[in-house]
């Protein structure tokens, strides 16, 4: 799934704290992926246009496929995408998917996605939360920063550790998304 694309939008929007939440509710057959930021937000008119593939804020090209593809992926499973945004307040993108649906795309290497985000934007904060049938794991770069005492989150040794740490702690939780 192209969570990275969507989260990069948050980074580009000047977000200093981006929260990525993956919630798996096997009883309800529901998977929810939420990306919430405190970036510059969008007005209502822009929100309506962002899932149009031919709308983008980029000036280098005329297509922007991050959100349109995310919406497609969600809708293909009978779910959908909602965007809440307020100028100056930030944006929340929430995609719901139906677990067990034949068209559900695999979650992919989410740990890798989150680690690349952190490693490549070491000055920004991210909260990554995985919730799975009541069990929860949270990684918060603000806590990591406290432990690191000034050592950068982009230090290769730190990134390697975090990747393994994330993988170990979320593997079993995320596995449930494919076990229906």
């Amino acid at each position: 799934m192209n969570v990275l694309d969507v989260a990069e939008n948050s980074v580009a929007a000047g977000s200093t704290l981006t929260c990525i939440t993956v919630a798996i509710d096997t009883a309800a057959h529901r998977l929810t992926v939420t990306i919430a930021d405190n970036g510059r937000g969008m007005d209502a008119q822009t929100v309506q246009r962002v899932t149009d593939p031919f709308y983008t804020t980029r000036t280098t090209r005329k297509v922007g496929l991050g959100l349109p593809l995310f919406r497609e992926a969600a809708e293909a499973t009978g779910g959908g995408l909602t965007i809440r945004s307020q100028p100056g307040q930030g944006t929340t993108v929430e995609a719901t998917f139906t677990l067990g649906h034949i068209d559900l795309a695999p979650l992919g290497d989410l740990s890798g996605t989150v680690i690349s985000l952190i490693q490549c934007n070491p000055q920004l904060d991210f909260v990554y939360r995985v919730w799975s049938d009541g069990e929860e794991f949270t990684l918060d770069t603000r806590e990591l920063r406290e432990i690191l005492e000034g050592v950068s989150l982009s230090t290769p040794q730190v990134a390697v550790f975090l990747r393994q740490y994330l993988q170990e702690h979320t593997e079993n939780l995320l596995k449930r998304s494919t076990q229906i």
Partner: protein
Amino acid sequence: MKSLEELAAIRDRMKGIVNMREADPNNIRVVVGMATCGIAAGARPVLNAFTEEVARRELNNVTVTQTGCIGICQYEPVVEVFQPGKEKVTYVKMTPEKVQRVIGEHLVGGTPVAEYTIGAAQR
């Protein structure tokens, strides 16, 4: 299972070194193209390979980072190596296997791996 206590140990090991890295005039920057085109072509394993190998060899003058689309999507995964006082080297169609040689011969040895560069690919 890994715990955050290990992170504190890494911090203690890295503390002195990191300050050196920032100020080091020989600081090498490895930039991996991580736009959709790069990721689709397999940039993430390449970024991971660089990160892991740089950490393993404790190359403390090397920073690994990412950028967006460089504009040559047909050559992805693309990796650029910036070294102060030297011309930028652009590697194309990178794989984790190629990373080993780039690190050994270029980042450590100082000689770019010519056959992996964009110059060789365009010929």
